[in-house]
Structure formats: C-alpha cells, structure tokens
C-alpha cells in the first residue's frame, strides 16, 4: 500500500487517527510522546486530540490509556492485576535506604547527594544510588549552581511509569508536605543561607 504521506495532503478523519493511535500504542510496551506518535502518523494528524478521544474510549475498560510524563501508554486496569499473576516480574526487594533515598529524590528533586544525606542523617552509599539508576528510576539532573557544582538527581519517566504517576506533581502527599514546609531547604541556624532559587521549584511549578 502506498505511503499516505505521499498521497494525502489532507489529514485522515479523526476516527482513523484514533485507530492509528490504538494500533501504535498497542504495539509497544514503552510510553510514546506526542512527537513520536506524530512521527509515525501521516502528515497533518493531530495526535493530541486523537489521544484525548482514545483515552475517553478506554475509560473504565480492562486496559486504559495512561499519561506518563510527556508520554502515553496503554496499561491494564490496576484492579485486574490479580488476573495477571503469571506476568508478575519478581523484583529485587529494595533496601530501606534505597526506598527512602528514592522518596527524597522524588519529593525534593533535583536533590544533591549532600541534601539526601542531610535529610536521612547518614551517608548515602554509592551502591544505593547505583541501584536506583540501574532500575532507571533516577538519573542525573543538572548540576547545582553552587560551590563545587554538585550533581543532582531527579526521577525518570520510567519511575513515573512504574508507579502509575502522570507527573511528579502527582506524588502522594506532595501538597501536604509542601504546605507543612517540609520540602523547604531549611539550612541549620547559624549557617549561610544557600542560594535557594535552584531548588526543586522549577520541577514542580510550571
């Protein structure tokens, strides 16, 4: 069949675009961004609108369209997980240190190693961070514009995918923590006020 890119200058009807979204997203296990979808669909398509229709269509179904960061993927409805015992992939149990470190990065991102250590009150082992990076749950962010230009860590879209989060703003209890001032970078009394404008604000507030 001829490539529609060559022959069509008008976009296909929205119903067809919906079908394309279904086909493309059913074919992959990885979330796809709008740009990736647009790249696969014929010229003139509007994947954002088509996605909205598809999402509506699958609401309440056995598989649903989920937004993961900037990307989209079909996932089975969580309430049907019990049917999928065979597909469960046993994961190594994470240490308490790893879980807490992950949570600190998620809620404080971008977070430096020193900040993680300050919050937990103990040093963070290299292995803990390595393990989280290997799981593709955290990655390096921008360097902090402070003395020593330390590296920061942020969570990945894979992390969002794993925990079924649309964005990092949907982390459980995030609003309450912020309201309680517990996500502020509060330096110990008597120390210099650090440059705060580089902290997590940019990630959570658009």
């Amino acid at each position, binding site marked *: 069949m001829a490539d529609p890119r060559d022959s069509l200058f008008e976009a296909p009807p929205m119903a067809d675009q919906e079908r394309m979204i279904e086909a493309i997203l059913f074919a992959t296990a990885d979330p796809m961004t709008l740009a990736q979808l647009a790249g696969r669909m014929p010229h003139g398509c509007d994947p954002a609108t088509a996605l909205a229709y598809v999402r509506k269509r699958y609401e309440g179904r056995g598989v649903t369209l989920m937004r993961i960061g900037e990307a989209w993927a079909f996932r089975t409805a969580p309430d049907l997980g019990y049917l999928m015992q065979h597909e469960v992939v046993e994961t190594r149990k994470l240490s308490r240190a790893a879980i807490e470190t992950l*949570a600190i990065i998620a809620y404080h991102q971008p977070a430096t190693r020193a900040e993680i250590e300050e*919050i*937990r009150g103990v040093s963070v082992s290299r292995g803990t961070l390595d393990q989280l990076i290997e799981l593709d749950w955290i990655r390096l962010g921008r360097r902090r514009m402070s003395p020593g230009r330390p590296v920061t860590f942020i969570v990945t879209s894979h992390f969002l995918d794993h925990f079924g989060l649309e964005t990092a703003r949907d*982390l459980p209890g995030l609003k309450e923590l912020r309201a309680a001032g517990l996500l502020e970078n509060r330096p*110990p009394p008597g120390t210099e006020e650090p440059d705060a404008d580089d902290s997590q604000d940019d990630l959570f507030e658009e």
Partner: protein
Amino acid sequence: MAQEPFDLGEASVAERVAAEALIVDVGAFEGPLDLLLTLSRTQKVDLRQVSILALARQYLAFVEQARSLRLELAADYLVMAAWLAFLKSRLLLPPDPTDDGPSGEELAAHLAFQLERLEAMRTVAARLMGRDQLRRDFFPRGITEDVARVRRVTYTASLLDLMQGYARIRTRDDFRPFVMDRENLMTMEEALDRLREMIGFAGDWTDIASYLPMDWQEDPVRRRTATAATFAASLELAKEGRIDIRQGDTFAPIHIRKRTPRDG
C-alpha cells in the same frame, strides 16, 4: 539510667537481656537522627510538640548506657551526643547577650524540623511503595510488535560540489591532461596494429625491441612509451594465441615469435 559496669561473670540475666537489646537496637538504627526519631516516638506526641530537651536527655542516657556496656559506638553517635549536650546547656542556661550565635530555641526548632522531615519522608516512601506498580499490579502490552526501522540514505551533491570536484582534479600538481600529449605517446592500439602487420613475417624468436619504429628509438621518452605499448600489445597477441613470448633471464631481452598451428 546509670548502670554498673558490665561484667559477664556477675551480670544479672536482666542486665544481659538489656545489653543484648541495646546491641540489636544500635545496629537497627540508621544513624543518630534515626535513633532520635525513634526516641521521640516514646514521647507519644506530635513531632511538632516534641520536647527537644527531653529528647536530648534520652539520647545522652542512651549513649551513656551503651558506653557503660562498652559497646563500640560509631563516631557520628558521639558527635551527636556532644552536640546535644551543647544544645541542652543552651536550652537550660539563660541566653548570653554577648553571643550572637543561634539561640538554643533556634537550634532545637531545627532539630525538630529535621525529625519531622525524616518522618515525613518515611511516610511518603511507604505510600509510594504501596502504590500500584508496573508489572505487579498493572501491566504493559505483552505482545509487542517491532517497528521496522527503515533507513533510507539519500546522498546529495550540488553542482558546485561537482564543479569543485572537477576543478580539484584539474588543478592537481601532478596533473597530466588526458588524451592530449599524443605526439610523444604511443598507444597500445598503435603498437598492436604495427605488431599484427609485422608478426606474420617473424617465424623465429626476435627481440621485441626490434619491432619499435625507427623514429621512436632515439628520444628516451618516446622509446619508453613505445616499448611499453609494444610489450602490452605483445601480451594482447599472446592472449589471442597469435604469438609466443619468452625471456631468458630477469632483465634479459624479451623475444617473441609467431605461433604456428602445430604449437597450438
């Protein structure tokens, strides 16, 4: 909380149990802040209302007991103990107006903040891990289809590239114009024509040099090209089965003769 020095021989069962519990406990704590957080829970109040003074006393007593049991405490536990002792004195003594450092209340408030923050992080960490997780509670597509990545490479060149390419060749230092210098160049075709005519008369081995035309034998340049062309022509004729070629030794003269039918 003061205790008698620990002695294996005379220690009561209760003392030994207490000592073992402490060993276990120290190992179970992830550092002084974790220990403080655990101790603060015994106050059974909101972390915001926790008495830092009482907490400091508890911690110091804990460290004292560990020392009395001759337990090895990591350095950071002792650093925290020293700091809490300092904080305790600040909280108990009236503020010194000449000291412009942070007040005891400020230091205590920060410690309370740290404890509350650690507690909060633990709570949300548990909530996070309690969420539905991919490949445990919800699942991605099981049968994925490979997307064929068709790579199409197109090459481009502009007319300018072409002209520059040609100009580059034509301006090369060692450039010799093509099919130009005919006067001093004998082509293989010429030699071949000549050889074809002459070979019919040569039944015996003859030096190939004798086939060179007279006017190509003097000038070294002309002789070289004529020799090469004639030799190449002789190879061509040998390939056609018209002549035989022989050379007695390296650099010896090359002889050719007409091949007779019985040889073939």
